[in-house]
């Protein structure tokens, strides 16, 4: 059935250093931060502070708020597992896989490109690989995740993806 899917940026001609990572599983999780059942289902601790991520294999958990996380995975099964783990507990685990897409920006000038529109301090003294924050890039709200020294992943809402891609391609043209 995969042939029926179309990603938000399927139409974009990406320059080197920019790519879409489509069709990942994402679950928006809201639960008490000390929920053991959820952590067991995740197989990894819930990050407890802004900027933190927890990683286990292909699975990454992002801190979104004091009782809110985004779970990223390659496989769709995690959603049902989290719903099951929440049974009888207060909280929610909502499938948001298609709500956002992921854009990967990489290269020696990646930070310079982002600094053209991101108000958060991205200097290595303040932000580094493994950290993720919700902020804006240009006028677009994103979850911004630094995955390597020169690689960032941006999670825009799908409706903003085309504009963000055009914004990034424009910002990259200097380099």
């Amino acid at each position, binding site marked *: 059935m995969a042939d029926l899917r179309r990603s938000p940026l399927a139409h974009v001609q990406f320059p080197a250093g920019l790519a879409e990572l489509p069709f990942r599983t994402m679950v928006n999780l809201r639960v008490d931060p000390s929920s053991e059942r959820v952590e067991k289902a995740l197989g990894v601790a819930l990050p407890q502070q*802004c900027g933190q991520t927890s990683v286990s294999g292909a699975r990454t958990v992002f801190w*979104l*708020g*004091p009782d*809110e996380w985004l779970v990223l995975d390659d496989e769709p099964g995690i959603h049902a597992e989290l719903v099951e783990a929440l049974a009888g507990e207060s909280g929610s685990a909502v499938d948001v896989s298609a709500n956002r897409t992921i854009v990967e920006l990489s290269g020696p000038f990646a930070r310079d490109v982002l600094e053209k529109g991101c*108000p*958060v301090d991205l200097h290595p003294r303040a932000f580094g690989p493994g950290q993720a*924050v*919700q*902020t*804006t890039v240009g006028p677009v*709200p994103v979850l911004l995740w630094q995955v390597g020294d020169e690689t960032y992943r941006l999670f825009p809402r799908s409706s903003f993806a085309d504009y963000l891609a055009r914004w990034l391609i424009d910002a990259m043209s200097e380099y």
Partner: protein
Amino acid sequence: MLLISCPWCGPRDETEFRYGGQAHVAYPETPSALNDQQWAEYVFYRENPKGPFAERWMHSIGCRRWFNVLRDTVSYEVLAVYRNGEEVPR
């Protein structure tokens, strides 16, 4: 541009926040028990002090939490930031 320290996310630019007006204006327990004057005071009347003012802000681009800011309306200095349920810092 104000720099507001979200109690959860730390200092961020004002553009990441939504303004919510005066803080500590509690929703009346039983609105139907109030006369028109009392209800109008809840709905329409707000303080407009010169100096420290407790306001409600929300980190709408970030963690989506509402919280309180004590801000000087003359100097625009953010004097304190505190979470819901906490007392106004002195």
